[in-house]
């Protein structure tokens, strides 16, 4: 059904949108100017994916909402992104750990979705596979450099890997919407992406002279149902405040 497809697109869009928002916070805060540019690039790519997906979701769900209606006028409980992307900035190693995991996931995701029965999604995927390949490579190169750099960077990178672990399982969990979307040929089962994505992560970690952390005691859950973590409310307050302060305005 269209409502289901819309809901599936919304999940993908929200992951991209919220991560784009977080990466936007790095701009003018990165360790070097080249990295300000690179992080801005990744942010822009994700924002681009989000915009097309949100627009299409608003068409399919019958509400006629625009990309901006969906980004600026939904409440926290209506956002469908995983917890990984909403976490506040940590240090640069945290960001590279997050990007490595997320881009490894998205690389498999979009590779599968180029054949989606939903044409807009197939189109987004065709473009995104190349973008995400760059994101994954960028994170990979940094994990290698930090892991095999100085002893401080090695320790920080190892600690960041440990900190990112609780957020991983949620990416590959088969939520009902993804299951239904996979059944209808629109989507792909998240669990089917895990092995290939994780192979890349593990190879990178090994190449970086780091070790894979133990399984975490805690795993995040609920993002796809609009259950978010504490930082999400503040993120949305910041993101939406100007738009909400001028209802009905055009920018």
């Amino acid at each position, binding site marked *: 059904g269209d409502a289901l497809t819309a809901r599936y697109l919304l999940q993908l869009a929200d992951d991209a949108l919220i991560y784009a928002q977080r990466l936007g*916070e790095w701009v*003018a805060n990165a360790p070097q100017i080249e990295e300000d540019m690179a992080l801005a690039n990744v942010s822009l790519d994700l924002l681009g994916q989000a915009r097309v997906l949100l627009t299409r979701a608003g068409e399919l769900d019958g509400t006629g909402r625009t990309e901006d209606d969906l980004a600026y006028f939904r409440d926290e409980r209506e956002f469908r992104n995983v917890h990984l992307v909403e976490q506040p900035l940590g240090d640069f190693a945290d960001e590279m750990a997050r990007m490595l995991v997320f881009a490894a996931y998205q690389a498999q995701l979009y590779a599968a979705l180029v054949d989606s029965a939903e044409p807009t999604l197939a189109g987004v995927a065709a473009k995104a596979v190349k973008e995400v390949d760059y994101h994954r490579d960028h994170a990979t190169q940094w994990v290698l450099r930090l892991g095999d750099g100085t002893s401080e960077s090695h320790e920080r990178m190892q600690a960041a890997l440990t900190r990112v672990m609780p957020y991983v399982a949620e990416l590959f969990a088969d939520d009902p919407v993804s299951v239904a979307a996979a059944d209808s040929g629109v989507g792909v089962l998240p669990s089917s992406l895990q092995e290939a994505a994780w192979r890349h992560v593990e190879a990178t970690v090994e190449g970086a002279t780091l070790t894979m952390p133990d399984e975490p005691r805690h795993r995040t859950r609920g993002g796809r149902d609009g259950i978010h973590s504490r930082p999400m409310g503040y993120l949305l307050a910041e993101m939406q405040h100007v738009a909400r302060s001028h209802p009905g305005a055009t920018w």
Partner: protein
Amino acid sequence: QAGHPSFDALIAADLRVEPRDDMPEEYRSTLIRQIAQHAHSEIIGMQPEGNWITRAPSLRRKAILIAKVQDEAGHGLYLYSAAETLGVDRAELLDKLHEGKQKYSSIFNYPTLTWADNGAIGWLVDGAAIMNQVPLCRCSYGPYSRAMIRVCKEESFHQRQGFEILWTLMRGTPEQQAMAQDAANRWWWPSLMMFGPPDSGQDASKGHTAQSMAWGIKRFSNDDLRQKFVDMTVPQAQRLGLTLPDPDLKWNEERGHWDFGPIDWDEFWRVLKGDGACNAERIAHRRRAHDEGAWVREAATAYAAKHDASRAAAQESAA
């Protein structure tokens, strides 16, 4: 001091001086100071707008804003590279910025209070910057002039985007119109100050203008550029429907220029000396980002050294 005949000949013929060319030490140091200040301005200039990336009121504007701030980072890189051709390096220049030993454009010590400020910065600040920079595309120092050609192309794009932000606001709700007018009110005078203090007529002997002109680094006086900017901008303000905050602004038929009121140079000097709204914040922000990133840069250097060494060893054993 020894003469520099080949340099003098290049300047006289209005040709480009290149890094390998002999040049007077003062020419070199003037250029380093100016290019570094220009590069620093791009980097510090990322902050006032970067501040609004997370709050841009539409996704389209957010994307445009990220791309713009990214361009500023890129301009900073071109310019640091141009400076490096004169025998300094970026890390050294950044240290001088962080220690307050080199300046950046004082305009960035003004705060961005509302979304409309992003429009005003594009329209007025980038507009003034272009006015300053276009002549630099013909600067006598080759690497600087080539960097400026790239920069100017992108800047004029930014200027149009700024204009368009304000255009949209002026066609929006009363609150949006008020926001745009308020931004114009606050940015107009500081934009005029961007051209620097008076340096024509009785002020012509002050500052570096004369020497810089002789060397082909500077092509027009501050006052001439300021007048050109006013002449260009007033009709744009009229098209936007904005009132510029100067009761003395009026067309002077005789001069063929817009007359404008006196600039508050006391404010200019106060802000330049550190007592502007954001001086401390801008430098503290840069230093924090730089200091927090030190371990990352060190790691990259260490990694490169290791892997260059192992590559070299591999090549050696293969040879």
